[in-house]
């Protein structure tokens, strides 16, 4: 059995008629860094709070290290679960110094002083140990909150958008430092975010949450390249979604003309499908098969993020997002030719 396992979890708030979480399953191995990614309101924070024990749930059970910590009949209180949490606003106790905040988690431990000093030194907080939360920078507050959550050596560490309150400039730095600390001690982490780039860059596994269910769980590579369904495909990264009909096992017909697939199409001839092509998979070529007009460009130095329109007689124009090298000098109104292929069988979805 997995280290932390959520089985068939359903949760409904008393005030609403809909379930926030619907028969949700999730398993996490020891030492894994799993990110829950989803839009706001998809239930990710609720899931975190149920795991922590701040909310009860209606059905299903949660297992940690081979024992049930939460089910409709069993409920171990949060303080007995040994699950650490870092809140979005850190929730540092304003009446305690940085040192007291961290030491608070140790209770009446004999080695309280030495342990607290040790972790503060490791996380370069020792110099600010006597400061109150309001005297700390955002990054320092975040590290104090992390130290407070880690000092009890929790079985699982939960983090609820812990970087979202930081300025962009320092966010990446704090994130790298945090990750390094977590990797060094081999912590098992469940991380919640709505920022896909953050999720892609830091996670061992990403779980995409939507409508109270996990849509897909897998490595960032799998999620990005092999989305399981259309929701995941459209949710992660930028995509062009186009409609087509299967002609044979390698060709699709679309309003733009025929598009070729690199892998065999897993659907029958004549099936209506939607397929995705990422901007970076569209190759600009002088004698490309398709031609469009540049509508707008977003110059980023090393490349252009551009939108082009392909005009077709008696049809609405088709808009396609492309990436072009920054050295190319393109501007709205230019005409560009390009080729596009469907890269993988995972990029095609049946339309019902």
């Amino acid at each position, binding site marked *: 059995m997995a280290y932390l396992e959520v089985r068939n979890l359903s949760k409904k708030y008393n005030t609403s008629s809909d379930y926030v979480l619907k028969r949700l399953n999730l398993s996490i191995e020891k030492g894994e860094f799993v990110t829950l990614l989803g839009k706001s309101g998809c239930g990710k924070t609720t899931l975190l709070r149920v795991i*922590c*024990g*701040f*909310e009860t749930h209606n059905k299903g059970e949660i297992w940690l290290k081979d024992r049930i910590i939460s089910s409709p009949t069993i409920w171990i*209180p*949060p*303080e*007995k679960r*040994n*699950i*650490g*949490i870092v*809140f*979005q*606003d850190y*929730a*540092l*106790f*304003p*009446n305690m110094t940085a040192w007291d905040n961290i030491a*608070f*988690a140790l*209770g009446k431990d004999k080695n309280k002083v030495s342990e607290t000093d040790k972790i503060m030194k490791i996380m370069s907080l020792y110099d600010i140990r006597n400061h*109150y*939360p*309001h005297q700390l920078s955002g990054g320092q507050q975040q590290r104090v*909150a992390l130290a*407070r*959550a880690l000092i*009890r050596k929790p079985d699982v560490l939960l983090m609820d958008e812990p970087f979202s*309150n930081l300025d962009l400039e320092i966010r990446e730095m704090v994130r790298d430092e945090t990750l390094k600390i977590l990797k060094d001690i081999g912590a098992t982490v469940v991380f919640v975010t709505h920022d896909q780039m953050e999720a892609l860059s830091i996670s061992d596994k990403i779980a995409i949450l939507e409508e109270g269910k996990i849509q897909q769980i897998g490595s960032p590579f799998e999620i990005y390249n092999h989305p399981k369904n259309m929701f995941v495909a459209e949710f992660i990264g930028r995509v062009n979604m186009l409609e087509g009909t299967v002609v044979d096992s390698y060709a699709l017909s679309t309003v733009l003309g025929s598009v070729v697939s690199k892998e065999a199409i897993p659907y029958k001839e004549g099936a209506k499908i939607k397929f995705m092509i990422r901007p970076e998979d569209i190759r600009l070529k002088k004698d490309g098969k398709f031609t469009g007009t540049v509508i707008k460009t977003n110059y980023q130095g090393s490349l252009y993020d551009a939108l082009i329109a392909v005009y077709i007689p008696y049809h609405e124009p088709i808009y396609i997002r492309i990436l072009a090298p920054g050295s190319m000098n393109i501007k709205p109104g230019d005409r560009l030719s390009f080729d596009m292929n469907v890269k993988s069988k995972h990029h095609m979805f049946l339309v019902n």
Partner: protein
Amino acid sequence: MNFLNRIWLNIWKGKPPSLTLLFINLSSACILMMPLIYILSRAISSPWEKWSVIFRSRIPTLLWDTISLALTVALFTTVIGVILSWLTEYTDLAFKRYMRLIFTLPLVFPPYIGALTYIIIFGRRGVMYSLTGSSIIDVFSFFSVAFILSMFTFPYTYLTISGSMRRISGNYEEAGRSCGAPYSTIFMRVLLPLVKPAILSSSMIIIFYIMSDFGGVAMLRYTTFTSSIYFQMIGKLDRSGAAILSTLLIVFGFLLLALKAQILKKVSFYQSPKSNRIKNPIKLGKLKALAWIFILFIIFFSLILPLSTLTIWSIKAIHQGAVGIKSLYYIKNSLVVSIGAVLITMTLSLPIAYMKYRHPAKITSVLNNICHLGSIVPGILLALGIVFITNRYLTFMVGSQLILIIGHSMRFIPRNLQSAEASMSLIPPALDETAFSLGKKFSTVLYKVILPTVSPGVLSGGAMVLVSSLKELPMTLMLRPPGYDTLSVRLWLSASDGFYINAAPSGLFIVLASIIPLYYLVKKEKVKENGIS
């Protein structure tokens, strides 16, 4: 001339007030200062022996009696306030919304009326005595006095502490639990420290209240500074003695204010709850019965007992024909004074509030603070000062109702100012600036543009003044023309003579009238809660 102009503009930061406005503010402040200055000068000019006699014979016991009572009541009310706040803010107690309202209701009883009901029940020849042959408790003992005063003042601590608890983010509690701490630890080490500023400031409110209250304390035959000043003046006709005691009370008050500022500086925290999550209520479980016993105990002794006593005795009074044409006469006397005070304070509060927000300068805030003196200076001191001044310089006014009305206005103008200033602060300067740019005169702007917009605030302030003035006791006793009985005076005199049945109807009338300002208080708390103002 240029040079003087520049200084003048500098004082007002480039926005000098019109001379009329300045004159109104200056003269109001001067009049309000006068009684205090006169008391001080009277005390200073007293012979040295007088001081030393008072210091030796009176001060030690007086200081001890006042401080011990104030601290005991502060302790009682804090414990009650914390428990009730915790129950209504953190637990799954039933009817929480109604409880919040009920716990503020005891404010409708001025302590002297509350004290009256306790004397009726537990007094030497009270109901308990006639029923059981014993009074059960001694209503005039130290702990009874502290208990009775606590029953009618705890809403102040409850309102402050529960408001503070409501603003504490639920995240702190959850963070504590995820650190493995049991609830008791979180309560003692996180929640209590966070409400400590509220506890301290509400204790200060209580301490000031007890120090300046006259009626409740005097009715229960306890001696604090205020009651001993009164008896020094009225009983012994010893003016310099009263002035010296008053001066000491003022000094004592200022020391306390300074102490409060120091303490609050040390214990205040910066909370930054970005997400104020709604707290999951704590299940009371087995404690539920205990909680309800406590709540019912408090409700019984602070509401049910006093209200039913007043009602029953008022009915008795009607049966015995003690309520008649005379009662209307008392009501009329009360209303003449109250309405007079309302008119004066409403007229003055507008220019004073306007000055505060449109011509902010050091001098403005000094004048404004002086206008608020009535809210911290015990009524008995103001009354004493006014007696001194009228007897010395304004003998033609002695024994007229006018002096009573002026006294009440001086004492209660802060109540009007509070709400007038609150509405004034919401008016954008562009409003009157536009009017000025259209060439309107200052008085036109003030009464045609500003008044209509702040009138709700001024009127609700007027309602507060009306009721405060109806309840007022010590000043009315000292300033009234001979034989001019108001409701509160009648109540006091009847009670002093032991005619409780005659006292009850006046009490009931005042209590019913007091529901008006309570309504505004509760509404203000609600507004604060929603963060509108």
